[in-house]
């Protein structure tokens, strides 16, 4: 026993230097980790939580003192206006209070020195998945947020401060989700709906085999056997074929979520980002007919509802009008959200733009590879494009001059005044596979738009203000201006340069990512 103990003591003594820090230092640092005096002062929220407690008390107090943060000395790329050299941004309670050159900073404001740094709005990704949301989208979305998701930090590390996160994958429903999704209201790309609408007499529940009476029958081994009407051979009994209705197709759903790492409040910006349709959902005469019908119904519903509200205000008692279409279509007609549909061929895009002009809704075409062929049509219809400049497609045979992808698509779009947003090749954060395909290459994807002839300002707008406008949130995010949300980045250079790192990402007025402390990207200074 004695020897055992002494061995244990010795072993522990040996272990202590490795596992144990000084008595009042709680975090043990590996050699070469973070050094003292590197980078900027740490965000108050993560280093010492005491101020947040005070802040909570202040918020309950009758006259709360606002939280100020001042970013001083950086070159401010506002996107919506001109660049302010060596300017100051004053943030009050998560919103931009003042922006410009000579701004009085309250004494109590925290200061971040950004001399020599770039300041841009936070980037917005239109196509994200598996970032910040834990579950499968079965329940209430805001209950499934995970503000401590590592992917949020990854997104912040490249500057993405908000985005349309896919919270429900599209496709046919399965299991409980499918059962729940049996549409009380028909959806535009619901095959089942289309079949019954197009053929009113068709009842998919009834078996056609049962209805057709057998013309000939004979007894074989005491059993009734049907005979083939043409060759009189017996038809062997098989399992009855019943046409099962196709499972309802659940449209993909994405929500606008802010990457406020570590904070739940303010994370959900908009529950529905787009009305997403599958490629080809609006091609073909019958599909378009059904779509027109849906839009008309939605418009009629809005009118009926306005009349109903008027009537109730006057004191009449009426039943409210029944919703004929899904909520998404109604908010599309209200122009609260835009329609997003993938299309790349000229003919498809022409049809879509005609429909959108005729039915009057906002539309975003995803892909749009051949957009350089018809810039006029696109500009007149006032549609937006989300492009991925690195995607290539071979032209069709015989149409080499007016099909396929062209690297100068961004230049053509810019010169025609068509707003375009840039998306990376993949919407997820991926640590495997090909580097540069995933969400973490968003600013570099925008740099490829510059390679294709777009100006740097437009390329920066294509990942900030343009996507914000497509989401209908242009008055909140995507640019730096008084009254906007304080979502901004402090970068050590041009965001479109591969050498540039995001030093600090500020979401809702609080630093949520700091390069020198969050161990996402390498920490060193370039010479």
């Amino acid at each position, binding site marked *: 026993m004695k020897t055992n103990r002494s061995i244990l003591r010795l072993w522990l003594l040996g272990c202590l230097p490795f*596992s144990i820090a000084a008595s009042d230092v709680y975090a043990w640092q590996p050699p070469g980790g973070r050094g003292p005096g590197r980078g900027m002062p740490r965000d108050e929220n993560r280093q010492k939580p005491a101020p947040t407690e005070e802040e909570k008390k202040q918020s309950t107090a009758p006259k709360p003192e606002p939280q100020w943060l001042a970013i001083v000395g950086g070159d401010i790329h506002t996107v919506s206006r001109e660049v302010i050299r060596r300017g100051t941004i004053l943030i009050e309670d998560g919103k931009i209070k003042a922006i410009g050159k000579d701004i009085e900073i309250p004494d109590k404001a925290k200061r971040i020195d950004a001399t020599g740094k770039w300041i841009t709005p936070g980037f917005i990704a239109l196509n994200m998945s598996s970032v910040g949301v834990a579950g499968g989208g079965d329940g209430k979305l805001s209950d499934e947020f995970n503000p401590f998701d590592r992917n949020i930090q990854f997104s912040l590390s490249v500057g993405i401060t908000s985005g349309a996160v896919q919270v429900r994958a599209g496709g046919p429903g399965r299991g409980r989700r499918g059962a729940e999704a049996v549409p009380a209201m028909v959806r535009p790309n619901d095959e089942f709906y289309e079949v019954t609408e197009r053929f009113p007499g068709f009842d998919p529940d009834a078996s056609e085999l049962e209805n057709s009476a057998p013309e000939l029958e004979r007894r074989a081994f005491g059993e009734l056997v049907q005979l083939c009407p043409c060759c009189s051979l017996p038809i062997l009994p098989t399992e009855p074929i019943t046409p099962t209705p196709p499972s309802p197709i659940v449209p993909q759903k994405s929500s606008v979520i802010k990457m406020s790492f570590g904070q739940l409040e303010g994370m959900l910006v908009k529950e529905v980002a787009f009305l997403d349709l599958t490629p080809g959902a609006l091609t073909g005469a019958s599909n378009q007919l059904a779509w027109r019908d849906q839009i008309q119904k939605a418009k009629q519903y809005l009118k009926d509802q306005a009349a109903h509200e008027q009537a109730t205000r006057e004191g009449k008692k009426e039943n409210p009008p029944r919703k004929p279409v899904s909520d998404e279509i109604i908010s599309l007609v209200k122009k609260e959200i835009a329609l997003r549909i993938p299309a790349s061929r000229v003919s498809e895009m022409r049809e879509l733009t005609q429909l959108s002009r005729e039915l009057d809704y906002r539309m975003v075409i995803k892909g749009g590879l051949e957009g350089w062929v018809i810039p006029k049509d696109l500009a007149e219809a006032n549609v937006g494009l989300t492009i991925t400049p690195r995607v290539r497609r071979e032209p069709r045979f015989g149409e080499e001059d007016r099909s396929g992808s062209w690297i100068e698509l961004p230049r053509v779009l810019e010169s025609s005044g068509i707003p375009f947003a840039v998306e990376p090749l993949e919407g997820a954060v991926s640590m495997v596979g090909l580097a540069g395909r995933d969400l973490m290459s968003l600013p570099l994807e925008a740099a490829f738009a510059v390679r294709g002839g777009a100006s740097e300002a437009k390329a920066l707008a294509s990942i900030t203000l343009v996507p914000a406008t497509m989401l209908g949130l242009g008055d909140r995010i995507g640019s730096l201006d008084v009254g906007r949300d304080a979502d901004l980045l402090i970068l050590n250079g041009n965001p479109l340069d591969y050498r540039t790192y995001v030093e600090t990402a500020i979401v809702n007025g609080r630093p949520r990512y700091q390069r020198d402390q969050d161990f996402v990207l390498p920490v060193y200074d370039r010479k």
Partner: protein
Amino acid sequence: MKRPFSPFKSAWLLLPVISFFAESSLLGKETIAIRNATIHTLTAPAPLENATVLIEDGKIKEVGKEVAIPIDAKLLDGTNKHVTPGFVSVFYPLTLQRESTSEETRTVVVGGRTFTLGGRAPSTRGPLQKVSELVREDAIDWRPLLRSGITTAHVVAPGYAYTAVVAPANFSEENPSQLKVVKKDGFLAATITNNERSLDLLRTSLRPASSSRGSRGPAGTGGPTAPSGSSNQSGASSSQTGGPTPPPELSEEQKLWAEVREGTKPLVINCNNAATILHVESILKEFPKVKVHWIVNGSDVYSARSSIRKENSTVLLSPRIDLIPNSRLRINVPALAASEKIPFAISLGQRPTDLSDSQVSPTFAMSILIKTGLTEYDALSAVTAVPAKLLGMEKSLGSIAPGLQADLLLFDGPPFDVATEIETLLLEGKVVYEN
């Protein structure tokens, strides 16, 4: 003053002593005194050196430096030894025997439509499992627990349960797993994650019963069944005018939740990630009185610590050094909690590996926490006095003071030296374990 030795007289003198001995042995009264020991009373920050603790009838009778030891007391020499209260496992997970409830669902297709039959609706929760009713009498093998110094366990069943405090009963090597429920009425405990289903358990249960009664329909009172907006006013006016509405019939479960809502009893929340802490705290903004005992990972506490309301929360940590999430940095979360004044307790026995037979030193894990910044007093009270207070049993457990139950550990050295062992363990004044 010398007198001749008189055997008669001395015999007379001895007689009452003998009779007392006989009586006490018949009634099971046993007096034990631990002498010359360093006693960690936990009623004061510093331990008592060279002190004596006197145990009579299963309870501590006296503790101090000058304690008169009765002549019949059984003596335990405590020279160079340390006495601490028995440890309280503030979270001891135990799966109960479930009643056979049919939770399986069947899927039936009728006319091309899919129906799900049986089972529970997806939004409802399981039945409340009462530990005091469902726990088997031999559910816990006490030997590894006692080896680790745990003399009392707060049993929390997984899922949704009403906890209870148990202790060994009639412990001996032949009867190692008998338990008795020391405290039947524990706390409501729920496992909660960040999804709608489990957060709704909190939301619906915490809401006052009157509003849920209104929404469910059967309003037994004769009062007007007005919509919720005007119900408050009408209810108030009817009570003022003298039509006393009978108080709504609360189910037992609703009463328990009402206690939680009023803050008279805490809610034990077992949450498996840091996000859940934020979700729960944002729900609890509506219910500021609710007290919560968090069963959490240290690293989750580290992430979400700025969101934990310090005044109404206690974190139940496991005794280990954690990693700061997504990094290689190590963090002593109990020491951090102590310095940031987040109330905490250390839950021993949470994992079976903590109790494994090979564990030579029961306080090994704790001693690492002490070496990296936790004070010895904080550490010891985090496994004794603090849990006893959390469980509302500070009058019988958790410290060494007259009148308290004599669950004592006698260590053969400083209790948090890495090579110290438990030499003797007393359960209610009886020596049940000797190394």
